[in-house]
């Protein structure tokens, strides 16, 4: 069904939720370093307006590794560093806060379903149980929409220039024998850095 596009993600949107989206790690170590050196103990704090959400990094990784696993076909989400890319996206205050909220709420919704079904958190059930839960929600409207958005962000992490912090050594490109084009962006040319450089270029 090729006509299914990203606009599906927006189908139930009703209003613009104003609020600052900020993100940090409970461990208080620098964000970028934390994202690279994730451990099972890391938790991500996400604040939208006066609400704060907490997500274990392992939760993000477990879900991503089910929907885009390392297998005989090629690298998975972990190798692509899709977890840190997702957090970077959530940190971006230029994206619609509603989108960020829906991603976070999707994790909460999955965990609630898991607790109801298994009396445990998602990260504490077996891999087979995790896969079963993902399969269940993939057949539901909200679950399909949420997983679709997560996949899109995995694709972005897979093909982004390594200066974005994912796709290390271009493993996503190499896997698919993809010619990434030339020139590739420098650190100063990637989004959103380029906006700061260009928007204040007032020469005449």
């Amino acid at each position, binding site marked *: 069904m090729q006509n299914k596009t990203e606009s599906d993600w927006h189908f139930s949107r009703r209003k613009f939720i104003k609020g600052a989206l900020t993100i940090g790690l409970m461990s208080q170590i620098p964000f970028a370093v934390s994202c690279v050196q994730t451990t099972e103990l890391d938790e991500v704090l996400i604040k939208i307006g006066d609400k704060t959400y907490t997500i274990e990094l392992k939760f993000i990784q477990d879900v991503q590794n089910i929907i885009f696993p390392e297998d005989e076909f090629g690298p998975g989400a972990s190798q692509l560093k899709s977890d840190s890319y997702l957090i970077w996206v959530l940190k971006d205050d230029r994206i619609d806060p509603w989108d960020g909220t829906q991603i976070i709420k999707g994790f909460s919704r999955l965990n609630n379903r898991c607790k109801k079904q298994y009396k445990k958190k998602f990260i504490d059930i077996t891999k087979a149980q995790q896969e079963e839960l993902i399969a269940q929600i993939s057949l539901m409207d909200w679950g399909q929409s949420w997983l679709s958005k997560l996949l899109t962000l995995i694709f972005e992490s897979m093909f982004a220039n390594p200066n974005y912090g994912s796709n290390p050594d271009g493993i996503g490109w190499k896997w698919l*024998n993809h010619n990434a084009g*030339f020139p*590739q962006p420098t650190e100063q040319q990637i*989004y959103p850095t380029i906006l700061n450089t260009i928007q204040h270029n007032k020469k005449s």
Partner: protein
Amino acid sequence: MAKKIACVIGSGAGAGPIIYELSKAGFQVIVLEKGPWFETKDFSKDEIALTRRSVVTPNLMDEPQVLEKKDHKNQWVAKSNFDTGNDFWNGSCVGGSSNFMSGYFHRMKEMDFKLLSKYGPIEGSNVVDWPIDYNDMEPYFDKVEKIVGVSGRLVNHKYQEPRSQPKFPFPPLAENIVSEWIDKAAGELGYTMIPVPRAILSQASEKRMPCYYSNYCGSYGCSSDAKGSSRAALINIALETGNCKVTPNAKVFHLKTNGKGKVVEAHYHDIDGGNHVIKADIFVVAAQAIESSRLLLMSKNEDFPNGLANNNGQVGKNLIFSAGGIGSGYLHYKDLTDNDAKKLSIPGVFVNRGLHHFYEIPQEDGTMTKGGSVDFLFEHANPIGRSIRRKWNADGDLVYGSALKKKIYHYFNDLRRLKFEIFVDWQPNDDCFVSLDPEVKDKWGDPVARIRLGHHKHDLKVGEYIAEKCEEILEIMGAKNISSNINGSAPSNLQAGGCRFGKDPKNSVLDINCKAHEVDNLYVSDGSFMPTGGSVTYTWTIYANAFRVADAIIKRFNI
């Protein structure tokens, strides 16, 4: 004598020729561009920045537009594109969307200027003849070929336009082997394929380098300046005259008149929230069709209570797009010899094949109706976009996990998708227009454009007829999973109209030289002037007409 001051609002294809010609003629040219100023060195092949985030277009949180479409109950429903993601901005920066075009350059043909008189009226369509004809435009089509730079190879076919020059100034770009296969398949059906002229240099010219076949052309800025953007081909040269000043990040929100039928000031916002005023003798609006109409509608005063140049209620009306649709088929490497498969997989080189055989379509009663044109091309190289389309299976269910990875690997390594894009006249109609939204404001507090996107069913019939013919070409080529999709959706990057030119002020905004009927020193030089669009992409026509308007301005304000 003091230099005449011309204030140009916008810097894309409709502005570049004005900026170029007036600067060279000795006018003092002030360019107000709402977006930032990217230079050639700033462009890279970064899919995230160029296609996944708002970098070369405004953030829709800051500058939304409101789109009106019919729902399943046939009722008009208005939604902000901040909510829907249906972005109608195109290249908001110095050079405008011409920086990011693919540069498929077909001239309009003689019949395109006379649709009403040649093919007759269509019920529900506001089709009219242009007040000028092909002969008036030919010198300017020719001028674009030379100055902007068009590469190509002429072949004889039944709808070849008359030309003052026997060939293009630049030889054709390198082609993929698939171009030969298309020629052969079309030939079997009795059609002549046309090498598509491109506004891309195949050889160096002045300070611009030739195409280096980056594999990322459309949607991306050109790193060699081979692409004939308004910025690379025209504005950079205008700057060398010393007569041109470009102010980026300057969003014009009001054109002030003096009560005597003249614009005297352009008022603009800067990105820091400050407001500024530019005084000039001549004002030229070229902000792309939707935003040009919006600016005129916003510029209300006692003399123009409905908006500048809008005392006859014509501003924003008869907005047009390019009708038609797309189709495609998949060429599998396993069906080819190893050598052919290898050649087919070569990235970068172009398909560059067009079909004009159906520019007119015979009717049952023996008459002709206007048809359209087709461009054949490969699917864009963008890997994120290509992967996203693999997420769904034929039943519309989400695919994930190893099954998805296998599907993606197969798609990237075992086949190549060949597309065709059909371009058909968009019948101007009463349900396609620009107005100001009564509620939604942009980040400066200005009312945003509200765009009603109604199409005419006639356009679909023409598109479907041509799609069927193109599918036959793909079948002969051995393509698999052939399909096409003709619908009434408006392509956001192919917009024109809203300020028609014509001889009668009652049903047009602009006169024959694209000067507002009601305002003595206001010109609109982007695609807004077009009453109909022809069955080709608009950029060449916009460039050519802007050169024509520049000549008229220079002649009138002879200094």
